[in-house]
């Protein structure tokens, strides 16, 4: 298995490892994958009042390529709007990390993770809006 320098960099020095408060209304959480398949990624985003991703955190159970893909995503989405972040494509992740064909699924999973995190955030916002009585 030949790893690109970028994959090695991300696995040796992962960015944004950590946990955000899942109960915080401004935090969206995406949990994707399956331990039986050897890949689980949890991606979390904290969105500020302007709708930009102020913070992103990840934790991953997976191979070097999976760790690198999720670490890269947290780097890329920080500071972006939700629209910009949801435009993130797995192909871009795979290209940046030089993933071989057998590891492309790691980039797909990372794309799914950020999508779910965004969806989770929007769901939370929607249900909050329902609870607040109209002014």
């Amino acid at each position, binding site marked *: *298995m030949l*790893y690109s320098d970028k994959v*090695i960099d991300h*696995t*040796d020095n*992962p960015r944004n*490892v950590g*946990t955000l408060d899942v109960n915080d209304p401004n935090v969206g959480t995406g*949990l*994707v*994958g*399956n*331990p*039986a*398949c*050897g*890949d*689980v*990624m*949890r991606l979390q985003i904290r969105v500020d009042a302007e709708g930009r991703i102020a913070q992103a955190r990840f*934790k*991953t*159970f*997976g*191979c*070097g*390529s*999976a*760790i690198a893909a999720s670490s890269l995503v947290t780097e890329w989405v920080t500071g972006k709007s939700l629209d910009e972040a949801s435009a993130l494509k797995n192909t871009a992740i795979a290209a940046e990390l030089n993933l071989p064909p*057998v590891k492309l699924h790691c980039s797909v*999973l990372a794309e799914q993770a950020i999508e779910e995190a965004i969806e989770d955030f929007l769901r939370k916002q929607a249900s909050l809006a329902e609870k607040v009585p109209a002014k």
Partner: protein
Amino acid sequence: MRRIYLDNHATTPVDPRVLEAMLPFFSEQFGNAASRSHSYGWDANNAVEQARVSVAKSIGAASSHSIVFTSGATESNNLALKGALEYYGDKGNHVITTAVEHKSVLDTVKRLGTRGCEVTVLGVDALGRVDPETVRQALTDKTVLVSVMLANNEVGTVQPIAEIGEILHERRVLFHVDAAQGLGKIDFDVEQMNVDLASLSAHKVYGPKGCGALYLSRKRPRVRVSPQLDGGGHERGMRSGTLNVPAIVGFGRACQLFSIEGLEEQTRIARLRDTLQSRLLEALPKVSVNGDPEHRLPGSLNMSFHHVEGEGLMLALKDIALSSGSACTSATLEPSYVLSAMGVDPTLAHSSIRFGIGRFNTEEEIDIVAERVISEVRRLRGMSPLWEMVEQGIDPASIRWATT
């Protein structure tokens, strides 16, 4: 940081003494062992015959004529299985083997199945061991051959070869043993254990790659196989092709060395393995050992570090050569079939690491490896969402994961 090699089940370095024995046969004594008419050929032939004696002695075979040199255990396995089923075709067409054999046995047996043979693949228990009773019960009057490995390459489990040999001797069914991993590490005596055919590998015993042998019993009646390589009729017609003289000489020397030094060496290696195992078990919670702790190769240690993925861990330990049963390390993305056959949970298979300790590993190296593994497992657990759940008292197995 210096590299440490702990993958001795994949291959071993050539012992300097073996290399020394081989070198003359590349330059001064380069003759073809089949050149009958001149001294270059005679010298090469003598060296090959000496090696043949060393190999035979190392497995308790009475006659060196029972040894056929091949390009390795894969070829020996192919020759044994295809060759025996072909030769004894009128006696039957049934072959029995186990689910934890090397691919060179399993895939060969699969191919035999497509050619009209009946195939039985026996399961193993949670420790990776095949029960001799299941062998007995699987026998039919059409069974030609049973193939069971001496010891498993992934988890090190040693199979009950002598017990199975006794059963098959009684029932007059041929017994083939793939001894590639076990040779030179544990007792293996083909006559005492009633073994009719055995596959041997040089590069697993500090010899060169590209060389192995097939033992064929000469006890009456002699065991025969149909050759799979036709040509000049080398190795008494059983395996055509110019002999790889230097490699064969090396193989012979390697067998001599383990025959002399074996017991002491394996005791030392087992101690290193046990030290590594206890250090890891003491320092880290939620780890498990895969395989049979009682009947295991001295240098073999296969462990699962729960909630950390195997390939990720190997990458974190990049200066230490290891291997893993994780799917991520295989080209087909399927986890280790050996661990699956043992009933090991796929998640634990993904978290498995195989340590293979060998002749040239030192106490100092084991200390370094123990420290690095402990430190990297802790670091990766800090990055694992599954470990976080465990710390919070949630069992990851209780979550309904979306199946991909």
